[in-house]
């Protein structure tokens, strides 16, 4: 007999987010309730949650770049990036972000996904450059348009990362797929899995690149 009660944990996450409760509380409550429903004791639930958090500390390491980025901002990095792109001819938002999309996919595909990202490159470099390019080709932007340009810069980083990193053999998701299927008796080479990530990566470049190309045209329609 299948026990359906643990699904309440998923339901709690959905309800908590729908009610816009603090996600840290929603996640914690869902974890505790799910564990208790599954028959763990209170101490065991807290211990399991704590161990899982401790095992995932690698996620916290990327924040060590913040003192460097913050210091450079102190000395005008964002102002400089904006200045540089303004001096460049022919750089539109779309072309700049298409270039960044390709760069991000290729570097991620060779295992260098942690060399770029929102704190490392988007905030200090890509977003100010995209904003400056938009101002150069489309004149002063409204606050709403400026936010759309910045959001598109961040979106381009995400698309480039997600549809680049799985081509790399030694990435967590590839290891996870391999391990999961191995428990059912299907032993795959990581290379097989990585190769099957390539068609989607090409598709992502074409689809998002097309949207970026259109993004230029849409901004141009806005009266100056």
């Amino acid at each position: 007999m299948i026990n359906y009660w643990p699904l309440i944990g998923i339901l709690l996450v959905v309800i908590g987010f729908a009610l816009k409760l603090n996600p840290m509380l929603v996640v914690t409550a869902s974890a505790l309730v799910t564990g208790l429903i599954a028959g763990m004791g209170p101490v065991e639930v807290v211990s399991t949650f704590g161990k899982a958090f401790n095992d995932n500390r690698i996620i916290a390491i990327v924040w060590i770049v913040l003192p460097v980025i913050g210091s450079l901002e102190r000395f005008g990095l964002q102002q400089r990036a904006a200045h540089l792109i303004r001096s460049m001819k022919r750089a539109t938002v779309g072309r700049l972000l298409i270039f960044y999309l390709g760069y991000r996919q290729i570097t991620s595909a060779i295992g260098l996904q942690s060399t770029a990202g929102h704190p490392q490159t988007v905030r200090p470099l890509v977003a100010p450059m995209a904003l400056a390019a938009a101002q150069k080709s489309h004149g002063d932007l409204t606050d709403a348009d400026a936010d759309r340009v910045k959001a598109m810069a961040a979106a381009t980083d995400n698309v480039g990362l997600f549809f680049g990193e799985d081509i790399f053999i030694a990435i967590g998701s590839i290891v996870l797929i391999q391990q999961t299927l191995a428990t059912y008796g299907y032993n795959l080479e990581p290379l097989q899995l990585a190769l099957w990530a390539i068609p989607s990566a090409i598709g992502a470049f074409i689809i998002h690149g097309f949207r970026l190309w259109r993004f230029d045209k849409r901004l141009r329609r806005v009266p100056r």
Partner: protein
Amino acid sequence: MITLHWLYMLAGAMFAAFAILSATDRSNGKRFGNAAFWGLMALSLLGGDRIGNFGNGLLVLGLAGLAGFNFLGKSHPPTTSEPEREAFSARLGNRLFLPALIIPVTALAGTLLYNYTAFGAAGWIEAKRETYVFLALGVLIALSVIYIWLRPPALAPLQEGRRLIDSIGWAAVLPQMLAALGVLFAAAGVGDAIGALAGIVIPEGNLILTVIIYTAGMALFTMIMGNAFAAFPVMAAAIGVPLLIVQHHGNPAVIGAVGMLAGFCGTLMTPMAANFNLVPAALLELKDQYGVIRAQVMTALPLLVLNTLLILLVAFR
């Protein structure tokens, strides 16, 4: 050998400094809340292996309580003004980019040299962690260059780092919480329950519908849990293995790899993937915290269709 433990020490020391500086920031009415929050992160990184599983659990409850009951305030670390920054930018010129580029270049060059030359043959870095080690090395080199060249006040990099981490707030810790939630879901048997439900819903032998439910389910569960890693074991147990691989004789490599990528389409569309979608909105100071997600939806949906077609077209030949 250089292990992840060294990096935890480095990051832990930084969070400890953030905690101390937070406690002395009188401009922040909730300064002790910020100090406690970053202090707990420091404790996790510095001492997580020594406080036991239950100790770590209490630590996580502390983080969630501080964030959830609004104990974090807005800080105002000392920094430069906009006109000062314009003046620095004009005076320093494009050389200002160089320290920023040190981090990616060190990580990139270090990883390539380590993996493809004799440089890494001795195995002096923990396996599979070399990119992180060179990332940290790049940070240290960049900081040294900044100190020597720009001569900021001694505490400026930590204060500027605190300015950025406080602007991100608890969202900086949420991804780690989600990874932990996925572990609990797996331990509680959530995958078995979903699989049983899927068996009731899907008409026997309908391949197209089964593939659509598999990819859409990966995207949906990723959106709910914020993490394709947490969704994959659930959907593999529920549909991928029993229906697509066993019943329909699908190619396991295609179903595994493309299924995970269908999940990534979901990651592009959910606020639960905080570090990818909410953190950049905060970092870029967007008025709409869902602005990044809005920019991604029209890329994610066609890509989800593409991944579904890919499985249908190549997995069952």
